[in-house]
């Protein structure tokens, strides 16, 4: 199955189950959880179902393209269902079957994994889904997001698309995944992966990133305080990415790192509170 057919299959599958197919967020984010369509929409009482590819960047995970599994740029497939349906595990297994991964042919296991994002003030309980010992999905029931209790509770399914594709295509490196006929993922990403790895680890200027962080942080605060939650939250994401770059560069001592994490967390919590207040005032959560 081509990489883009995997995407199409999952899009079809979740669209058929009532999900909005949302486009990827148009900025750097560390994971699908940071997407406004996840982070903000998990707040408050309004039901919500969303699915779609969620390209993500984790500068510290770059390996110059050498490691077959680890990249600073990778694709998650992100599904959020609110409230979490009672049969969500079975539906998830159906989605694997749609990709040709039949549970009776594999050892598919739900292994405890308690997820926490200190920067987002978010945590949840759930599992890593293992297929034959390989983690292919994170499965999380959000308990808190942005420091707010979730009611109702959303469930987040995060598929590791490259891993699933490598398995389905029987290739040993993510760059060997065939994305369209005759086109490999490496053709699209290799140069960027190598260059970004160099940038993240060697070339980024910590002084610049520190300044950017401060600027983004101030801008996020100002906008959220003015009731511009969505633009403000965009700056929270930018600040978070600046922090990730500083972290990858090894520019932060342990205590300094903790302090940055707390600063982002405060921004995320402020955004969440403002979003909820806004939603309550407007009578709708958008």
């Amino acid at each position, binding site marked *: 199955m081509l990489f883009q057919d995997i995407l199409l299959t999952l899009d079809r599958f979740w669209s058929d189950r009532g999900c909005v197919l949302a486009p990827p967020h148009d900025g750097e984010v560390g994971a699908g959880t940071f997407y406004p369509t996840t982070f903000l929409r998990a707040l408050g009482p309004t039901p919500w179902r969303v699915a779609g590819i969620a390209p993500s960047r984790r500068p510290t995970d770059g390996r110059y393209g050498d*490691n*077959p*599994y680890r990249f600073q740029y990778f694709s998650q497939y992100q599904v959020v269902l609110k*409230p*979490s*349906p*009672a049969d969500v*595990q*079975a539906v998830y*297994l159906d989605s694997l079957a749609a990709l040709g991964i039949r*549970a*009776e*042919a*594999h*050892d*598919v*296991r*739900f*292994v*405890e994994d*308690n997820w926490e994002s200190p920067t987002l003030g978010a945590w*949840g*309980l759930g*599992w890593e889904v293992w*297929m*034959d*010992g*390989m983690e292919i999905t994170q499965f999380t*029931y959000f*308990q808190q997001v942005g420091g707010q209790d*979730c*009611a*109702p*509770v959303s*469930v987040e399914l995060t598929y590791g698309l490259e891993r699933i594709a490598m*398995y389905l295509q029987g290739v*040993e490196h993510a760059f060997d995944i065939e994305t369209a006929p005759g086109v490999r993922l490496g053709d699209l990403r290799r140069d960027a992966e190598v260059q970004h790895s160099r940038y993240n680890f060697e070339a980024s200027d910590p002084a610049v990133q520190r300044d950017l962080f401060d600027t983004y942080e101030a801008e996020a605060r100002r906008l959220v305080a003015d009731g511009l939650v969505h633009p403000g939250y965009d700056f929270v994401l930018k600040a978070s990415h600046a922090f990730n770059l500083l972290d990858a560069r090894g520019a932060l*001592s*342990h*205590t300094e790192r*903790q302090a940055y994490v707390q600063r982002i967390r405060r921004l995320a919590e402020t955004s969440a509170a403002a979003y909820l207040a806004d939603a309550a005032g407007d009578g709708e959560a958008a």
Partner: protein
Amino acid sequence: MATLLFEIGTEELPAWYVTQGREALAELAAERFAAARLDVGSIDAYATPRRLALLVHDLADASERRIERRRGPAAAVAFDDDGAPSAAAVGFARGQGVAPEALQVEETDRGTYVFAEVATGGTPAQEVLPELLAGLVRDLPAPRKMRWGEVETPFVRPVAWLTARLDDAVVPVEVAGRRAEGGTYGHRVHAPGPVALEAPEAYVEALRGAYVLADPAERRDRTRDAVAAAAEAEGLHPAWTEALLDEVVDLVEWPVAILGRFDARYLALPDVVLEAVMIHHQRFVPLAGTDGALADAFVGVSNTDPVDVDVVRRGYEAVLDGRLYDARFFWDADRANTLAHHAWGLSGIAFQRDLGTIADKVARVGVGVGRLMERVGAPDDVRRTVEAAGPLLRADAATEMVGELPELEGEMGRAYAREEGLGDAVAQALLDGVRPTTPGGTLPEGEAGALLAAADRADTLLGFFALGKRPSGSADPFALRRAAGALARIAAARAWEVPLRDLVAAAAAAYADGPVEVGDEVVDAVTAFVWERVAQLLAAEGADVLAVRAATADGPPVIDAARRAHLLVALEGSEAFAALRATYKRAANLAEGAAEGVAADPARFETPEAERLYAALAPARDGVAALLAEARAQMPAWSLGAGPERAPTPGAGVEAVTALKAPLDAFLDGVLVMVDDPALRANRLALLREVRDVLRALGAIEELGG
């Protein structure tokens, strides 16, 4: 009498909760049945990752009937002038469900009152159970619960179904968004539909037919056998750890063993790395050959019996290969630098706010261990090892391997030290220095590492206590109880003949230049805190709490306290000793009035009782010394908490000691101690003090009971 089946079907529970939850459910159910006065015969408890279940045998048909007398208003206000029940009495009777005429008048200590006799119980089990069983779901203890969907009742993981059967009847339990059914559900993949039950007793058998082994003992046996068989087919055997077996058993409902291989070149990695990758990351069972060395093979335990085993095997092998590839990468990258170089990295890792970085801590430990070596009298070779290893302690925490596999801290220090050619003694000290890593964990093997580990724990305790961060109640966020337990265990196992407080004070020297002030009161507080751990560890060995108090009261070396505690427990078995102890208390109380340091003068006793008592002292002193020497010989140093290999058997010394009783009784009964003549009084008190001191070598035996 009936049989009840109650099953809480769940989405996958954490493996560590399966056993804990099963036990907690059985315990809670027993409590609730007792509170509801519903008699039960026995309760069997079952659990898998997807269910917690109880099979209750011989459940009473109704709650026990009982007549209760309940007190109402005072008689004075319960009747009007004509003797008819007042409004107060009528209201009380109505509240208790009895007729006003049935009220009885009775005098009590606190006055005369009316009483109602109320029959309670007799409620049919069918009526009691719905609420009782719902309560089990609501109140099952768990360290952390979650919510899901719009369900208000938190549980460990979402509740997927409930099964509640009382013989043939479904018990209508409703809780956590589910309504109980009469049947259960089988294996998620192999038997996903409902599984009908002919009767509650058919539960385990019916599930076995649906690819679920609900009985944990059966699942454990099946898992162990299947893994052993898969290994033997290749001439290998499983290198299980008990913890791995526990976890694997609670990760599956239907264990299927699948053997896989990995590239033999990864065998160049240290065994601890291979095991960490296989066990901690994949829950694979490492396999060993007949020579005990790890082989290039493993067994994974699948939860499904796959259509084609090769598909799963290839998957297992591919994922393990990726992990070993990474480990190999870290191994090579880390070895490109020396441990001394890695140690620089510790200055970037915080230990604790106000206590500096790990590098600061390691430097303090270096100072503290120096003092400790003086106290303990470490021989030169140990001293040299400590001096070489000290600056490298925890250096491996800054390596990539430990960054990825934190459980290998210490192990990698040893492995890299060996690779670097630092010698086995230094390498071992780097591993020993972080031991024990768990409350009952392996203790340091060598003296050098033990000294480092002890100095490290003492440093931690002193620092946090100086910051005022001592644990309170159940909250111990910095694991200080564990650190104190480790210090106690190390001191005992090394048989350090140094009073505990002196060990702690030695480490305190490292704080002379800050970063916090560690004064005598902090040293005292830490010492007392460690004694609490000693007491708890000895209690776990079965030593009576009073014996422990007696053995530790004078602040001895930990090993002496431990030996004396067991010796006192053994002595308490002797009637003669218990009898002596009673007399001793009188003597010790009187001796409180004696001046310190004044010896009794045998020339000036003026009574034969005093002379006889004095004559008995020397043999008793020898007897006590003999008892202590025996205890030392019979109880070589052991791991505190696990108990000495055997309890001491006090020998002839007991008689020499208990022979004190007769002359002591005669003295106390026949001689007036507090005479007017000050010199005579002082001499008699001095004699009693000597008696006390002889016995005090066994501990503060006045603390003992009886």
